[in-house]
């Protein structure tokens, strides 16, 4: 069983500009896979590289398996090779001057307690990643997907305490990415590996992560299981980043526990779930996903009537631009048939449980 990773108040400041990682806290219990998700430049890769020891943190503590590997305040900095970690790089980083076997055997040869039966270990690991027959091939003759398997085998072969994966699938084409993603989950779970995985791709995050941490501008906004990230986003950025692209602006009328009533002006009132301490009179933004709007239905709550302004048929789905009471919504209807037209009034229902209200912090929070 592998051990856990604990990160406390991690800060990384580069020579110029503001902190790339700004007070991040989280832990990864043994055997769990945590995915850091966020747009480029959010600090997720820097966090990962700090854990690997390839970047030197400015402050905070990183412990792997109960051992502190980095704590600048006390002058602790363990080099990458002493951290007992494995890492899979975005560019694969397989060594082109070595064969598949030599690549995978390399860590065993250069680790203090790596030894043992090297070729047996290499064979087993190549078998695990599905490259059993490729051991003597030159890595330059492999496809991108196969190279990434070699990289994975190389980082698994010595059974490190912690496996770090830095956007390992982003250089592959779409089809292969989906296949390797599912296989990666199988391999990681089969080996019981503790993993920290960095990606900007939501579908990877959802499939691979036991928990997902959404990052933005160096801060960890929410760390929760995938279903919670998608259904109870803690923050308007998380909601927006995971696909809740509709935003309705209004004012808070009242709040009862996790439920708030928002005045949308001409459109009327809307009931919404909220994770924040909103007070009556606060400016609020209500986020909801395009596919959660029920068009042509009049439900018990949050029912409105509006007009379809534009219809965009996309084959597998249809997108409608809907206007109601001065607010605009994008509505997504799945299926190959478009059922609504652009003429006349149409009923729409915004299920209160799927409308999430957040404090309106101006334009910056929305992008």
């Amino acid at each position: 069983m592998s051990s856990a990773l604990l990160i406390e108040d991690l800060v990384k400041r580069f020579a110029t500009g503001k902190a790339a990682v700004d007070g991040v806290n989280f832990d990864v219990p043994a055997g769990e896979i945590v995915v850091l998700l966020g747009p480029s430049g959010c600090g997720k890769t820097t966090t990962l590289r700090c854990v690997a020891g390839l970047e030197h943190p400015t402050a905070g503590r990183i412990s792997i398996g109960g051992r502190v590997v980095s704590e600048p305040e006390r002058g602790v900095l363990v080099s990458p090779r002493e951290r007992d970690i494995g890492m899979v790089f975005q560019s694969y980083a397989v060594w082109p001057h070595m064969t598949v076997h030599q690549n995978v055997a390399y860590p065993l040869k250069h680790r203090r307690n790596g030894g043992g039966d090297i070729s047996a270990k290499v064979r087993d690991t190549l078998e695990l990643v599905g490259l059993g027959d490729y051991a003597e091939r030159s890595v330059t003759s492999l496809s991108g997907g196969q190279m990434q398997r070699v990289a994975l085998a190389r980082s698994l072969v010595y059974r490190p305490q912690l496996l770090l994966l830095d956007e390992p699938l982003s250089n592959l084409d779409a089809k292969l990415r989906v296949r390797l993603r599912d296989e990666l989950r199988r391999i990681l779970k089969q080996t019981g590996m503790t993993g920290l995985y960095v990606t900007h791709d939501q579908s990877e995050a959802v499939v691979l992560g036991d928990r997902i941490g959404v990052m933005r501008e160096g801060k960890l906004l929410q760390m929760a299981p995938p279903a919670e990230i998608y259904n109870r986003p803690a923050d308007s950025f998380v909601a927006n980043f995971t696909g809740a692209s509709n935003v309705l602006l209004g004012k808070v009328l009242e709040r009862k526990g996790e439920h708030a009533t928002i005045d949308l002006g001409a459109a009327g009132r809307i009931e919404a779930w909220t994770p924040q301490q909103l007070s009556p009179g606060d400016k609020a933004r209500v986020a909801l996903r395009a596919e959660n709007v029920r068009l042509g239905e009049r439900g018990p709550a949050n029912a409105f009537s509006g007009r379809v302004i534009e219809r965009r048929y996309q084959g597998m789905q249809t997108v409608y631009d809907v206007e109601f009471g001065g607010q605009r919504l994008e509505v997504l209807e799945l299926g190959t048939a478009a059922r609504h037209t652009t003429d006349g009034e149409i009923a729409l229902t915004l299920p209160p449980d799927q409308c999430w209200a957040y404090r309106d912090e101006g334009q910056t929070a929305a992008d």
Partner: protein
Amino acid sequence: MTATSVEALPAVTEVRRPSRRLAAPLWVTALLLILTFLVIYPLLMLVFGAVSDSNPVIDGFGKFNPSLTHFIAVLGNENVRLAFFNALMACGGGTILAVVIGLAFSWIVVRTNTPFKGFIAGASMIPLFVPPLVAGVAWSILGSPKTGLLNTALKWMGIDFRFDFYSMSGLILVFGFYYAPYVYMFTASALRNMDPSLEEASEVSGASAFTTIFTVTFPLIAPAILAGSLLSFVVMLGIYGVPAALGAPANISVLTTYIFKLTAWSPPLYNTAAAVAILLMFVTAILVWAQQRVLSGRSFATVAGKAFRPRSLNLGPWRWFTFSLALVYLFVVVVLPTIALVIAAFRRFLFFKDFDAVFDMKAYSWVHFNSIFDNPLTMMSIWNTMKVGFITAVIGGLLAFAIGYTINRTHVAGRKSIDLLSTIPVAIPGLVVGVAYLWAWIGLPGGLYGTIWILALAFVARFIPDTVKALSTSFMQIHKELEEAAWVCGRGLLGTIWTIMLPLARPGIVASMTLLFVLAVRELGSSLFLYTSDTTVMAVLLLDYYEGGNIGKTAAFSLVQTVILVVLLGFTTWLSRGAAEGAGRAG
């Protein structure tokens, strides 16, 4: 309506075709003829010289007795073999040293946090601009076994050790120090283009920084190391100045100095010189071919189209050690030789009673400068050099533009042959070009021999591959569609070249021409065989001073040359920068 346009079209093309049809072949033929005249004819004459025993000066070309026996006899000659092995040893040893220095420097500059890296990177290229003979002269002043300044200093310090740069090891040291930048250029760019995660993966795998360098980093840039060392070997092989200054006093001949010795014989052994020149060319051609093969092979280290964050290793306090290594190198290749030249040029006599005598100001004067400028040859050689440089730059620049445009931007038949012919001189050392031009023109009365034009044409031929390559790079940066847009607008081919290509490629053209000028000013190897007393150039006159044995005048003239080169380089840098800005405004 459609009917009229269909009828109209053939008529138009019918009118334009005849002239078009002739223009391209005429153009290609003209270029091929020029290149044949510049490159092929002299080479053929060189081969002719090597396989015959007729003296072109006395016999003209009437008496031609071709026979391979002469060529074979030359190859079997004891002295030729000795010169050949000396050359291999000096260049081989020099290359090994150059690889060590070049690799160390590229690693220091690209991969560590050594302070003032930019300065180190820039300054370490200085040796490329030092004319080989000037370097040789400086080191003979420093390291001659009896009177060398280094040995005077050692004696003063009471150390028994003495340097002797008039030796094979002296040659190897100077070669290695001055041609390390060739290796550096290749390895530094390979390191820069290398995905840093290849090294990080090794570190995460548990390998130490030291293991990583030798199992991952160096193997990955092996092609660049090989290409750089082959290039530096080829360059050293063709150098005349360093072995002339350091080898001659110890009677060590390499191929280049041996060839010149043959033509300076009385009577001159032109046939033997041609045969040895062909041997030198053959070795060079094989190495150049090998280098091109290595370069065209798939490079391990680069991943196309990806920018990497430069990875710099934190050396801690050791970064001052790497910094001081760099300083020592710069001290040895730049500062020490400069000091030596300055002392030798300004001292009446280069003899020191003891070390304190170095600071005896009464011993210094302008006497050597006065005496070289009293010599009318000095001003004439400077003037000649400028003329030759100017002619070379203009003719070479125009020819390279014509060739580069034809190769890169047109689809005319025969452009492959133009490409091939203009690349051949890459494999011909300057000295061989000199011997070939000698053979090509010495027997023709009233021809080019004895004029400065033969020097300029030899330089054009020698440097045409570099110039075409430099220009082609700037052509590639100009998108084909910019030209096509002008054609669509109704401009003809020449109009397009004039209004689009020339203005956009101007920085490249100015840079290539100025490069040609500087190369021509520095060139010694090919001038050696082509000058006459009226057409002496600076590099040749410097050799004269050196061989005349007057160290003071030699050092003084070395300084004059260096100053002229520095001023020229500064001026040309300023000029190409200005041109680049001008183009920036125009674009």
